[in-house]
């Protein structure tokens, strides 16, 4: 039986690790390769490197960052941020990524998912969805997809988009709640349940993690993996510590 995955996320800008609330007020804190290796030592099951560089110059360092992280890391590495097409994906895979996340480009041009999946396989092709409540006062109205780091709301239904993306070749969904990201108020379990119930590929829950109870409820809602950044980045806890707490609750983890 598969175990659940605990995935620290490194937000990287211009080749350096940063983390901020909703990508604003970024703080510089460290070298991605050193950080990733430390997380592996601390029991991480996988690492996500998300490039939040705003400029092409910043993003040019992306492949080099991936190469340096790869040389140190003996667990899977997923890389996202600014991937526009299959050529970008190929560059990152060649540099040492095991999976590539696509977000805005897939919304603008869904065929890019099929192109990446056909060339490199569905198991390399991760669709990143940033989802926000259409109406925070009416959860029944569902979630819409937001793109460009939350700058644009698309009106597109997040659940329908997840289904379409899987049909087009996505092999995994990295699901971020835009309402919860950076808040430490817990994952959006209703969103996780809606997406995990709609598709047959694995779903990584992201946005809002603070306590072991948050992870537990996200996993019970249907997530196959849980991603977090701040709680690891500021040393509040480690993947190994969280796994011990989850195991005590009957969740299967790699220890």
């Amino acid at each position: 039986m598969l175990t659940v995955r605990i995935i620290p996320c490194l937000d990287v800008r211009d080749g350096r690790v940063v983390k901020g609330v909703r990508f604003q007020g970024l703080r510089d804190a460290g070298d991605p390769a050193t950080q990733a290796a430390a997380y592996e030592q601390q029991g991480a099951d996988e690492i996500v490197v998300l490039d939040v560089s705003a400029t092409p110059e910043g993003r040019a360092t992306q492949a080099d960052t991936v190469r340096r992280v790869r040389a140190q890391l003996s667990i899977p590495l997923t890389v996202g941020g600014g991937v526009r097409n299959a050529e970008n994906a190929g560059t990152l895979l060649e540099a040492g990524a095991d999976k590539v996340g696509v977000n805005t480009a897939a919304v603008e041009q869904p065929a890019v998912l099929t192109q990446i999946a056909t060339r490199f396989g569905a198991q390399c092709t991760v669709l990143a969805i940033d989802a926000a409540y259409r109406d925070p006062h009416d959860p029944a109205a569902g979630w819409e997809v937001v793109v460009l780091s939350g700058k644009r709301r698309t009106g597109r239904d997040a659940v329908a988009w997840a289904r379409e993306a899987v049909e087009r070749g996505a092999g995994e969904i990295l699901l971020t709640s835009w309402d919860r990201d950076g808040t430490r108020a817990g994952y959006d379990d209703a969103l996780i349940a809606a997406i995990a119930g709609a598709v047959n590929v694995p779903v990584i829950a992201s946005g809002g993690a603070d306590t072991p109870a948050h992870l537990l409820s996200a996993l019970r809602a249907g997530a196959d993996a849980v991603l977090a950044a701040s709680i690891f980045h500021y040393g509040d806890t480690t993947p190994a510590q969280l796994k011990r707490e989850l195991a005590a609750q009957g969740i299967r983890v790699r220890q």
Partner: protein
Amino acid sequence: MSLMALTAPLVVQVVRTGVANIASVLAGLRRLGAEPALTEDPQTVATATAVVLPGVGAFGAGMERLRASELVTVLRERVAAGRPTLAVCLGLQLLCERSEESPGVEGLGVLPAIVRRFPATVRVPQLGWNEVLPQAEGGLLERGFAYFANSYRLDSAPEGWGWARSEHGGPFVAALERGAVLACQFHPELSGPWGAALLGRWLARAGDAR
């Protein structure tokens, strides 16, 4: 791996089956002190001390690539003769007769087996860490957690091979071994210290054959 340091690094020829995941395989081998090289040359694959057949992606595309590089016969002969060979993920599947993934495409046929898709009762692709349970002791394979990234698998082991089992919608073949031939459905290069130790044992066995 300290013994290896006393001799020249073992050159491991990694068959170029495509772009994806090659970097992880190369990095994993380098971390263990081996010297990986990429090749598509039939003569090199035929004579190399150690060969890795990696690969992710589709069965049909993988076989097409091997056929175009004229590697089909040399790989068949290597594995049949028991020369040190490591097949990873799609690499294991390519050793089989055929796969549901690409109907009508003939595999290397070294393993009398057919590759089938995971049932729809579980998440596909299988992405994550699963427990590997060797069905016998004393081989290269030991019990532990390995990282898998696959939609297809063997649901039973061919005769004459040692094997390890995992569960995802029922039992499936996590790995096969016979002498210095090791075929893993999981990615040892992505399976942390447990995977590195397995790679190290295979490299040591390949080194013995030099």
